[in-house]
């Protein structure tokens, strides 16, 4: 007897699955939209209204966690002009998880993919931003390219103020641009549109290995598989306030899956040499920039403290030239302090390499990066507040170019991680 194939053998957590009776009740859907954030009936209904604007005939299943919304309902049949939207509440219900009590973000994504697979959907969308901060047009903006432009991955391009989403803007987006050669602004979403082809790959990849984070791996997977990515201008996203005094966990949480993906995808990104823009739909929204200054003093104090206390760890990760530069930086006054992008980029790349080589405990490693990150943020803040400062976009474009320029450094270190280096 032929053994089952790997794909057929995929089994996610049963608690996350669309149960068969429900799947039978629904039949199939063209599009599955998972609303991951907690939300009320009104907000969900607004999303559904927006989705109905998609040209029909489409059957759209909206998965959410609102028990008030009732079971799957049909308010009308799909027509040529309008999509048919129906609710599927409780499908993303939380399982009893004694340790954390909540589903991890990655698992929740995976559950939407599983549901989409069961409903034989041609695509799925994930709205992970809280609906109070997401505008209702997002739903159809992110869905539309899946059907009209045959996109495999629709990524958001949020308008942002200069200190919003900096972890993404200073590390994740420019590094992915340098690594994978496509200029995407929010590679980790969290809102996505995903084609059937891609969510099937994600399900297979999850089944094939551990340490797979669906949210972080979506974009690298699409990039390495050479799938079509479209970026959509979403307008403004309201970011949660950043707690600059407690960045360690955020850094570790965000960078771990990114660095793991780097290791997994090394054969792919080491082939890419230059970056190109992806297809972009919509017009950028220009926001009034917040004129309030960020207090960089505590950041630099953290940097100085790290420089004194973390030398032992840093010296395992960073080459002498970098340590030397950091030592010189630590002697500068707050006003003088500037961390060159080239230095910052090498630091990030060296930490990625140390993560791969398991030089020290990975969590420990990433947490030790916090003072360095704060040093770069302080430097960025200074750059934007001096008279005649450049725009945040130009400043960050310069950083992206530094990541691209530094890629050969990363590749050479990655391929030949000799510690006897400059």
């Amino acid at each position, binding site marked *: 007897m032929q053994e089952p194939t790997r794909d057929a053998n995929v089994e996610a957590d049963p608690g996350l699955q669309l149960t068969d009776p429900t799947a039978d009740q629904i039949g199939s859907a063209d599009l599955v939209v998972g609303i991951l954030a907690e939300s009320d009936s009104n907000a969900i209904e607004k999303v559904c209204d927006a989705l109905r604007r998609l040209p029909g005939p489409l059957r759209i299943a909206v998965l959410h966690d609102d028990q008030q919304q009732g079971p799957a309902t049909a308010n009308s049949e799909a027509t040529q002009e309008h999509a048919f939207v129906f609710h599927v509440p409780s499908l993303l219900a939380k399982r009893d998880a004694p340790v954390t009590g909540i589903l991890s973000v990655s698992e929740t994504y995976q559950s939407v993919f599983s549901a989409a697979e069961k409903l034989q959907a041609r695509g799925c969308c994930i709205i992970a931003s809280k609906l109070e901060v997401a505008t209702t047009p997002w739903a159809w903006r992110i869905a539309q390219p899946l059907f009209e432009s045959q996109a495999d991955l629709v990524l958001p391009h949020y308008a942002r103020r200069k200190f919003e989403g900096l972890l993404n803007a200073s590390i994740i987006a420019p590094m992915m641009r340098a690594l994978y050669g496509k200029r995407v602004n929010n590679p980790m979403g969290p809102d996505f549109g995903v084609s059937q082809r891609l969510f099937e790959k994600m399900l297979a990849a999850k089944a*094939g290995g551990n340490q797979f984070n669906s949210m972080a791996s979506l974009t690298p997977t699409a990039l390495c598989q050479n799938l079509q990515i479209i970026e959509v201008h979403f307008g403004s996203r309201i970011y949660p306030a950043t707690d600059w005094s407690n960045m360690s966990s955020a850094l570790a949480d965000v960078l771990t899956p990114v660095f793991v993906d780097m290791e997994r995808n090394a054969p792919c990104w080491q082939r890419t040499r230059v970056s190109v823009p992806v297809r972009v739909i919509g017009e950028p929204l220009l926001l009034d920039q917040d004129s309030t200054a960020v207090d960089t003093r505590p950041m630099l104090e953290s940097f100085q403290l790290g420089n004194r206390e973390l030398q032992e760890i840093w010296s395992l990760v960073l080459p002498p030239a970098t340590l030397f530069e950091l030592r010189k930086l630590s002697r500068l006054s707050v006003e003088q302090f500037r961390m060159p992008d080239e230095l910052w980029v090498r630091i990030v790349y060296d930490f990625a390499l140390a993560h791969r080589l398991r030089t020290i405990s990975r969590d420990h490693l990433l947490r030790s990066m916090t003072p360095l990150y704060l040093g770069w943020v302080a430097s960025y803040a200074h750059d934007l507040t001096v008279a005649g400062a450049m725009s945040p976009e130009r400043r960050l474009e310069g950083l992206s170019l530094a990541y691209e320029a530094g890629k050969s450094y990363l590749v*050479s270190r990655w391929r030949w991680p000799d510690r006897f280096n400059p």
Partner: protein
Amino acid sequence: MAKRLGSAADPLWYKDAVIYELHVRAFKDSNADGIGDFPGLIQKMDYLQDLGVTCLWILPFFPSPLRDDGYDISDYLNVHPMYGTIDNFRDFLSAAHDRNLQVMIELVVNHTSDQHPWFQAARRARAGSPERDFYVWSDTEDRFKDARIIFSDTERSNWTWDPVAKQYYWHRFFSHQPDLNYDNPVVVEEVLKIMRYWLDMGVDALRIDAIPYLVEREGSSCENLPETHTVIKTLRREIDAGYSNRILLAEANQWPTDVRPYFGDGDECQMAFHFPLMPRIYMALRQEDRLPITDIIAQTPDIPETCQWGLFLRNHDELTLEMVTSDERDYMYIAYSADPRMRLNLGIRRRLAPLVDNNRRRIELLNSLLLSFPGTPILYYGDEIGMGDNIYLGDRNGVRTPMQWNADRNAGFSVANPARLYSPVIMDPLWGYEAVNVEAQQGDPSSLLNWMRNMIALRKLFSVFGRGSMKFFDPANRKVLAYMRQYQDERVLCVANLSRFAQPVDLDLSEVEGAIPVEMLGYVEFPPIERQPYRLTLAPYSFLWLELQQKSQPTEVSTDFVERVPLNATAGWEGILKGAICQRLETVDFVSYLPKQRWFAGKSRRIKSTRILDWATLQSLHSVLMLLEVSFDTGRSDVYLLPLAMSFAEAAEELQRTSPNAVVASVISGKGSGLLHDAVFDDKTCLELLSVIENGGRLEGRDGRIRGTPGTSFRDILGTASTPLPVRRGSAEQSNTSILYGDRFILKLLRRQEPGLNPDAEIGQYLTDKAHFDRVPPFAGLIEYEPRGDLGSSTMAMLQGLVANEGDGWTWTTEELERYFETCAALPFPESLQDGLEGPLDLSEKPALQLARDHVGIYLDSAITLGCRTAELHLALAAATDDPAFAPEPLTAGDLQTLLVDLQEHASNVLDALKERVPYLPDDVLETAAAVLSRRTRILSYFKALRPDTFQTWRTRVHGDYHLGQVLKVKTDFVILDFEGEPSRPLSARRTKQCPLKDVAGMLRSFSYAAYSSLINYGARRAGDRSSLEPWAKLWERCVATEFLRAYRQTAHGAVFLPEDAEDFRKVLDIFLVDKALYEVLYELNARPGWVRIPLMGIMSLHL
């Protein structure tokens, strides 16, 4: 037992694998009994994962009397108690799979141990019984006499008498290993059961031991028999039917051609060892000569796409020398086993590091070859740390000593009393475990272990090593081994120095000209590859892996992926061509649009920026004529003419569908969504351009004016044709764009703009309006751009009358030659001409050869006509005129001297280039090239010898780029086209007056090219005819050239530009012929080295 999945997701996983061969017994002892076991192996799985290997090959671990290191199995379905239990094996399998490691075990089924229950039952069963039939029996030793004895050191026969069975039993190896009888279907079924047992457990690969010997047949060597392949196909079918991603590896110590059948048609084993390569690698290293390696690879046949060779430097057996000649074996014994104790059977029982005298560079070099040769590398345990051997142990046990983990007792292998160890650890000062062990090397960043880990990781990054093709280079220095691996778009150049001294090497990498080698270990970019040999210098025993990358496109121009926001065109052209939108056009849209245009001459350079210099709307406001300056990262900037229009609705959709490359950008206006595009694709614009000429229209630009001027013939050509004339676009242009208007006009848009009159328009107008020469397309008008200020005007477009024709002269001539060769192929070459023909100039002094007319036929008439027309053209251009641009001028001695110096310098440069490229020329060209080079002094002297003051000639405007492609066949006559000159030269140079014989030389060379290129094409289809037709090609060329020259000289007789004396004529003509031929040599050297013989023969045919 439930069937478990294999661990590999990719069906071809074994192609990318790095296999690590180990013996459980020797790896790690977990229970202090002195023998390695599976729990011990599991403890070391992290080490193996960290090393980067992807597949573990476990030597036999089954219950066995262990008289042949486990290859004598007494129970196929269990684990030897010394190594653990079957559950321990399952735990090991899971531990491996958890780490994405595949597992290969042994399927030793050619024979069993004589202790196997099958054999014990067989010897006791009656002869002919099913039990007896499991093995091969005979009453005498006489059967299968032709089979060799493999273990000749220990066995005297392949038959051994069994006193219980009272018969002889057959064994190809030791006498305690009776061979199974594969003619018995029950045996095959039992083997299938064994195979299923392990595959069901999840094992990924099976190495079939001693595969050539499964079946025996009388009168044969009992090796590689067809019946053996039938058995293997049965095993493979079973795997394919029940399992996915599992493989069979064949152990057949045979020549590659004999091993090839074990791959079948991809329906037997997926892998097989390449045994003969291994000793030859060592031989090449010792001899410092790549030949042993390139020879054996050349003898290696292609294998099916899904199959793969298994490559190794060392394994658990002796370095086998069965697959070398006796001389080679003697050499290897001398070179690698000075002590006779190092020898065993036909081989050398030593590990890798001792074989190469523990030289780190040699170890690295050999591993670099192993990891980059086409196949899957197999590492032998301990070789990654450079473990030594113990030649004082018997059999092959010297290379099977305990793994050396650290400097603790028993090398960290076991905590047992050292006396209990299955084998002593290596203890000598050089190789002992205190000096060579894993722990020490893990702590040493420069250790061999870390080097191996990095190299394995690097290999795994590139599929090309496991899956790519291989091509050897043949540099003169044989101490250097160089080869290219290629898989899809991945190309890696590997270069290895087999010598103990530094070596230089020149590699002909012209096939990858333009690529940039990037050294793969350090990601270091090397200088780009050029047509010239690529020179490398290699340190002793060094190697280079160079990834060949295409020159990266700058990010600024990589805009194909952008779906750009449509340009807002609601404010019309003013809105688009000013401000921010204009900036986007200049920085983004034009940058991506230009390289896609055929007429764009800057494709080889990177566009740095573009700038709109000026533009003017056509009267309907529908479109614009624009001048765009394009700057490059190197060289001077160019100016291009861009007619632009906007289309909307269906017209835009149609354009997007039919001519997407014509689209510059999307636009949006009150008319809806549309496209900004090349206006040539808009009929309305094309008609407006015609109207500008017809009406002498004026279009005001921002910094200049565009002016149309009709030629005097415009009305005559237009005649009574009904307007508007239908518009179509030409398709053959390279540097310009043509628009055709019905059967009346052709408008040539001159894309690359230069200040000054375009010579094509200038000469066309002169010949039509002033010289009234009617064998050119009549000039009908032009459009010029006149910048403000004193800057000179430039020609934007030229209008000519459309000439009905039967194609260009080149096409017509080659078609005629096709027929000519077809006729001559069946004929013997005339004896009267065997001694060769005189040159065309000499022949033209004599009556025409009847023989020539018999064969060349009507083409001679055409040559005569062409000679006449060429002379008439020159006469027209030499006519007295008050136009200084055309008035003939004497070619002074000074002019001639300058010309000769230039030509001589050109000749010298070309001959230098030819000399440099000689080693890379095809064989059939070498002789001619050498002959030409031997005439170097004579050629250069010829330029010097010409005395400018001894004769007088004149210079006039000439065609400048005259050849058969520049004439149109019009019934029995010709029309001469395209007076633009060589487009690569500056406009001023193209307008200078020159000796008209330059045109004559151009046409004569064109005849030669037509004859020989047609012969090459004809010969490509009928290889045998080429050499026999060469005299016919020569005959055609001479006869045609003769008649052309005769007609030319007769028609131009008495003209001022024609040297009166025949010898002077010859000298001047030969100068231009040599120069043109040398120009062609340079062109062909760079473009088609196989064709360089054509111009070389042209040079040789001249009486210099």
